């Protein structure tokens, strides 16, 4: 590992709503070592060069999902991307694509928060279970069904990778669908009847045209495209089965 300090140029998209009509790029010369992430580069800028630069972060270890941004045009976690991989080229940082910019690298994520709430991302039991009945039991095979989809950290990289969401933000989108799928697959949950209307809806899964970039950029290997596309089949099944099952029998 190279521990000597080198200088990298970081080009950061700035937007200060009180004074800028439109966003613009500002360049900073940042000293870095091989072990420094893009997030650390931004922290250097904020501490030493430009105190007004705004960005979100918390865990700096790819677990909280706060530091999603466009790095050289690709949605990535800033804490999970090294400066050395771009050096000696200029590294370009922009706010996460497809979301409105609140300020600098901070996006407005109200839309996703509303969607997240709407899908009821928690276990809905058929009959409420008394505490005295103890914990739910689940076999490893039952866990395996949904575990991958439960790794989502709500980082929104998949939304920044989805042109359909960029073109129509009403689309429920990959991350929220991964969570719909995660709870519907859980053997402890009986809430799928409450969630499926969101899947069937006009702004549901059929907005997806299987671009597949969401799954490629996901830092947690959730494969949200898989969740969306399996639910296209589920939705079609629900649609046709209602003609052959007596009213209410399928639920």
């Amino acid at each position, binding site marked *: 590992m190279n521990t000597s300090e080198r200088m990298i140029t970081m080009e950061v998209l700035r937007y200060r709503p*009180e004074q800028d009509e439109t*966003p613009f790029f500002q360049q900073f010369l940042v000293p870095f070592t091989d072990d420094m992430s893009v997030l650390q580069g931004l922290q250097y800028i904020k501490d030493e060069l430009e105190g007004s630069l705004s960005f979100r972060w918390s865990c700096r270890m790819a677990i909280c999902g706060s530091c999603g941004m466009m790095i050289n045009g690709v949605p990535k976690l800033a804490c999970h991307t090294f400066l050395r991989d771009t050096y000696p080229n200029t590294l370009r940082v922009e706010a996460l694509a497809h979301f*409105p910019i609140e300020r600098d690298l901070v996006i407005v994520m109200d839309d996703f928060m509303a969607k997240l709430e709407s899908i009821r991302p928690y276990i809905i039991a058929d009959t409420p279970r008394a505490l005295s009945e103890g914990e739910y039991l689940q076999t490893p095979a039952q866990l395996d069904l949904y575990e991958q989809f439960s790794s989502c950290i709500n980082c929104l990289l998949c939304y920044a990778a989805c*042109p359909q969401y960029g073109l129509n933000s009403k689309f429920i989108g990959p991350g929220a669908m991964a969570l719909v799928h995660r709870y519907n697959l859980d053997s402890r949950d009986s809430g799928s009847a409450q969630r499926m209307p969101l899947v069937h809806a006009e702004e549901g899964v059929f907005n997806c045209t299987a671009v597949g970039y969401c799954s490629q950029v996901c830092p947690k290997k959730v494969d949200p*495209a*898989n969740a969306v596309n399996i639910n296209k089949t589920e939705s079609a099944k629900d649609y046709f089965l209602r003609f052959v099952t007596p009213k209410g029998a399928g639920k």
Partner: protein
Amino acid sequence: MSARRPYVRPMTGWWRKNPFFIEYMVHEGTAFFVAAYALILLASVVVLGQGEAAWNRWLEFLMSPLCIIAHVVILLAFLYHSWTWFNIMPRTLPPILINGTRVKAATITYGGLAAAVIASLIVFAIVARLAP
């Protein structure tokens, strides 16, 4: 009054901004050639119903250099289309379990491609046998 003034970036030219999206547009574009070939097949059936003379004229047209070039282009587009189609296939399927373990994405892709190759060979063999 709120000082908030969220800035919405335009989506114009979105597909040119990322190599992944360019490839996506190209492989979606190959669907046009698939549709074109379906129309050629359909036209053949219609012409066949119009009797021998019409059929012979159609065959002659199919063997014109321009038509052969068009077929080569369609074939290439078809090959690329098949590859991208089977490439995305694992993302669209629920997990397939064999003896309790999940079939890998690459296995599904290559399995699909192998099936397509075998089907093509069978069709080719039948046609070769029927050809005068």
